[in-house]
């Protein structure tokens, strides 16, 4: 096999062999519908509930507060739309941030079209939400605050506990999109006063197509998928049993390995950041230097464009991602990079590298050497670099 250094673990992760192994019997042997009466199938209901317990334990929640979904985007959609509807009588104002995932931002826009008012908070140059700004944005009619636990592009970890306290004191629901953070950092829903939390299986070495929404007991929330009585009548549809088994196995594994894994990732991440900043001129780190996900590094290289960089890295067997327009499918670079104040051309030249549990120091060394060569080569070709050199 050709060399493959996978540093795009924020996009998705490899399903761990033990996770896959746990799932397999639920396709071909234990395939019964958990809602059926006979023992062959109904024991799958117990298995599903066991996974609910594992996940609840990981968050300090109760099993009946975990609702399985088809992934993070569904959980985000559900939290916002259904909470907005359920609390419409109380108010029509929602507060979120400019750096949320599109699953939140586009849902916010959808709700705006249906008469809700949405405030999108600015962030500082590190991507951090200001608690003062948040307090100022709160109105008597505010019903929901949704702030991501950690940003998927730049890795910044938000002051979730403080935000939760502010929301709690004022009786406002607090939702957090923890798709990138869950399994990477310890999360406790009570300590942080989290009322709803979205997470996804494939970001933590689990399968794709499965996730969950944590909904605190007592929170009024409408059913999102109407139909059968699954998920306490709030999310109909036959349970994705293999997916749920895989999610449970992945969560239990992530909790077990978290301390050691993230310590190792942090060390390698810092090694990567230090080397890149030191050895490649005219580049910067995006996101907070320390309050960031253990596996996330995000750089901007001046005078070059991200897609070109990604293709050249790919030629060397390195997988990363960029916030350039060409990779976003629109003409604008990443909304997150613009929100932290980067000028367009610097945002176009961004590179996100997200480490995984298999990443080793040799990979980082190889990547840094490749980056040095590629960045220099692309700059040689760049009219912006030519102008910069001539001016200085």
């Amino acid at each position, binding site marked *: 096999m050709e060399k493959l250094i996978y540093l795009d673990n924020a996009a998705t992760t490899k399903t761990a062999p033990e996770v896959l192994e746990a799932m397999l019997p639920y396709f071909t042997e234990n395939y019964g519908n958990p809602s059926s009466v006979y023992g062959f199938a109904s024991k799958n209901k117990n298995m599903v509930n066991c996974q609910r317990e594992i996940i609840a334990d990981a968050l300090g929640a109760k099993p009946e507060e975990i609702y399985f979904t088809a992934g993070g985007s569904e959980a985000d959609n559900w939290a916002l739309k259904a909470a907005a509807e359920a609390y419409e009588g109380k108010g029509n104002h929602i507060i979120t941030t400019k750096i949320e995932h599109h699953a939140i931002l586009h849902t916010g826009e959808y709700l705006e079209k249906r008469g809700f008012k949405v405030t999108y908070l600015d962030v500082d140059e590190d991507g951090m939400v200001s608690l003062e700004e948040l307090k100022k944005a709160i109105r008597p009619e505010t019903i929901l605050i949704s702030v991501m636990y950690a940003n998927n592009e730049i890795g910044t970890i938000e002051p979730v506990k403080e935000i939760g306290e502010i929301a709690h004191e004022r009786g406002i629901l607090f939702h957090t999109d923890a798709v990138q953070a869950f399994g990477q950092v310890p999360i406790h829903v009570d300590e942080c006063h989290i009322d709803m939390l979205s997470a996804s299986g494939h970001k933590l070495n689990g399968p794709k197509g499965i996730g969950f929404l944590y909904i605190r007991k007592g929170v009024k929330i409408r059913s999102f998928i109407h139909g059968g009585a699954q998920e306490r009548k709030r999310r109909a549809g036959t349970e994705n049993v293999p997916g749920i088994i895989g999610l449970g196995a992945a969560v239990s594994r992530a909790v077990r390995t978290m301390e050691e894994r993230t310590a190792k990732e942090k060390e390698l991440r810092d090694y990567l950041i230090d080397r890149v900043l030191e050895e490649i001129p*005219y*580049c*910067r780190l995006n996101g907070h230097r320390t309050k960031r996900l253990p596996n996330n590094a995000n750089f901007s290289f*001046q*005078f*070059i*464009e*991200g*897609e*070109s960089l990604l*293709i050249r890295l790919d*030629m060397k067997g390195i997988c990363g991602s960029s916030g*350039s*327009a*060409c990779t976003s*499918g629109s*003409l604008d*670079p990443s909304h997150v990079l613009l929100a932290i104040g980067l*000028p*367009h*051309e*610097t945002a*176009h030249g961004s590179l996100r590298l997200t480490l995984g549990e298999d990443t080793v120091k040799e990979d980082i060394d190889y990547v840094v050497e490749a980056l040095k060569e590629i960045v220099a080569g692309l700059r*040689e*070709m*760049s*009219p*912006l*670099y*030519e102008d*910069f050199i001539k001016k200085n």
Partner: protein
Amino acid sequence: MYSEKVMDHFEHPRNVGEIENASGVGTVGNAKCGDIMRIYLDIDENQIIRDVKFKTFGCGAAVATSSMATELVKGKTIKEAMQVTNKAVMEALDGLPPVKVHCSLLAEEAIHAALWDYAEKHDIKIEGLKKPKSDIHEDEEEEEY
């Protein structure tokens, strides 16, 4: 996503560089959209393009179209170079994904901008050539670290 030809021109771009005392230089695109192309032309007294170089800030398609465009105009007369349209560049590359078609427009514009510069310097008129519209620094202030 890209054809083999696009990848070949991206991986091994032809005619990258600058020409000192070029007969004409044209820069188009802007940093805001993430694409800037600069074309240098060396044109002799018989109005033949003896040499051409380019520099591009942009995606894979932008680099490949610049490279292909320089190949298509090299050794040609100005009149022939005027026939090198974005369609011709795209065809020579075996096509581009729909979202990247604007890159080929940029390559055509860059050649026209360089020819315009040449025409202005030499006080001549090139039939069918219009004044280039874009300026690379109109939207952004350069930022340094």
